[in-house]
């Protein structure tokens, strides 16, 4: 490596920065390139404006041809205080100019300048890239665009009329304008119903398309899941256990699709518990009913609770001979409680040998290692209930 490449090229491209701008960032951008204080350039523009409006034309030209600085930052808008200050300076200078007769062009140059700004704004609005963006943008932006277009149009009209007034041509133009207005109005009247029906047609087409997309989504879902399962059920017709399992898992899946809020699979505890229960239900063919109250983010200690809960579900589904397992999860502000209950044969806790991993290690041990607790309530013939409690850290 002989040379470290300079981060900034020797001749930086002229751009308009968004932050710190007063009007459009032209002066600031140019100042950055010329290594000058932007205030100097701004005053120069103001001074040139006072002299026959040259400053505005120059500024507008630079605005048109200078690209905006690419930036991720949010547009914070202008510093209106500064705008007012520079405007006031210009106004005072103009007043002095008019009073002293230094401004040669007189008032007639102003309409041209105003018309110029107006067409500039309109021109900017018509930029195809932007038009694309408005289509996807929010209502607020659309409204802003309308306001801008309105101002642009107004400035052009004012500029044109001002020009005619200055040239004493308004009276002659009046008849022509009237003629144009009548023709345009007439065409508008003729075309209005057609335009309205076209608009309605477009709206209708749009709603129809949305509806069709929805229908297609439902059809795709039904095809992928329900029809598929029905085929499997027919094929397994002589295995009642498998049929029940298939029907149950399809039911659960359809229910989730219809009624559950769309959740990221493992982002929250309730969603994770539902997923774990669904997996164990599929694996063991025993329905697991879940009721969740509240929800919270899944963190490390709650993951431990989730693992312990899975072990409890596995035990209940595998050994209890209960027809159904109930899981109840309650998330309170300071702690999380989860119950896994079956109405199976139950057991005597003291009879469980110390080396059996399920209850002692995977449930009680795991909960205690992670700062929680587990309580097992069981008796032969009375089912089993395992209660897991974990304090919430957040």
């Amino acid at each position: 490596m002989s040379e470290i490449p300079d981060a900034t090229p020797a001749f930086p491209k002229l751009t308009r920065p968004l932050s710190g701008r007063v009007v459009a960032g032209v002066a600031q951008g140019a100042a950055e390139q010329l290594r000058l204080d932007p205030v100097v350039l701004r005053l120069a523009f103001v001074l040139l404006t006072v002299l026959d409006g040259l400053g505005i034309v120059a500024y507008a030209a630079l605005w048109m041809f200078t690209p905006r600085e690419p930036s991720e930052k949010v547009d914070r808008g202008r510093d209106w205080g500064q705008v007012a200050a520079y405007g006031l300076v210009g106004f005072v200078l103009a007043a002095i100019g008019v009073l002293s007769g230094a401004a040669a062009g007189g008032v007639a140059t102003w309409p041209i300048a105003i018309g110029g700004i107006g067409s500039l704004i309109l021109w900017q609005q018509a930029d195809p890239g932007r038009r694309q963006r408005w289509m996807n943008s929010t209502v607020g932006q659309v409204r802003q665009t309308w306001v801008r277009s309105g101002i642009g149009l107004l400035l052009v009209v004012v500029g044109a009329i001002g020009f005619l007034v200055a040239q004493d041509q308004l009276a002659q133009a009046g008849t022509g304008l009237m003629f144009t207005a009548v023709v345009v109005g007439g065409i508008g009247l003729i075309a209005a119903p057609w335009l309205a029906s076209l608009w309605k047609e477009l709206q209708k087409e749009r709603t129809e398309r949305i509806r069709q997309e929805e229908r297609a989504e439902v059809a795709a879902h039904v095809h992928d899941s329900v029809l598929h399962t029905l085929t499997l059920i027919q094929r397994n017709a002589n295995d009642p256990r498998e049929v029940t399992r298939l029907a149950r898992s399809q039911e659960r899946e359809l229910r989730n699709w219809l009624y559950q809020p769309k959740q990221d699979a493992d982002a929250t505890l309730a969603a994770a518990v539902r997923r774990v229960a669904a997996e164990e239900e599929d694996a063991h063919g025993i329905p697991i009913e879940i009721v969740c109250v509240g929800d919270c983010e899944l963190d490390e200690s709650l993951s431990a609770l989730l693992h312990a809960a899975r072990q409890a579900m596995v035990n209940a589904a595998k050994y209890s001979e209960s027809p159904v397992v109930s899981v109840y999860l309650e998330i309170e502000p300071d702690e999380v409680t989860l119950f896994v209950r079956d109405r199976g044969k139950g057991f005597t806790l003291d009879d469980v040998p110390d080396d059996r991993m399920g209850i002692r290690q995977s449930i009680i041990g795991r909960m205690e290692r992670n700062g929680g607790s587990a309580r097992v309530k069981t008796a032969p013939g009375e089912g089993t209930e395992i209660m897991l409690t974990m304090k919430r850290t957040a």
Partner: protein
Amino acid sequence: MKTVRVLIVDDHRLFRSGVRAELGPSIQVVGEAEDVETAVRTIAELEPDVVLLDVHMPGGGGQEVLRRVLGGGSQVRFLALSVSDAAEDVIGVIRGGARGYVTKTINGNELTDAINRVAEGDAVFSPRLAGFVLDAFASTEAPPIDPELDSLTTREREVLRLIARGYAYKEIAKELFISVKTVETHVSSVLRKLQLSNRHELSRWATARRLV
């Protein structure tokens, strides 16, 4: 035990005959209806003790039946029976005046029990409904407007928790050292709160739950 006269309102014929076959001898099915119109007419004609009401039906669903029958001053008791687990549906029919809500996966014996309980004027809460109530009454930041109606007592909360954990009323009574009658009283009281509380959160909560 006196037999309970039941009317089944459901738009699926297969399901109606399935329920009919499953019910115990203490239940007498006096009729069936398949939409809102026939349901309202048949209820007025037959005056059953309990109406098994489907939530989703053509012509406005179970809530419409409840509105028209109970709005007319009838004392008929309704038990909602649905495949839907949506909070909106569950809370909707309970607030519409049903005395209980069970899902169609319930087995024949449990359904017979539930019907008997509703016939006696008690309330029937499925574990899921109990969970919904706990959730809806827990999520409150604003102070209740009517403290008596807008919040649950500690005992009611305990009872609901046990229902949500899958306990039957008898098991709850044993767990809390109270009588089954007391459990029923607590559940009925929760049902009353659920129906009368004008916590605007309740309906909003149920609707919002779907949209999350």
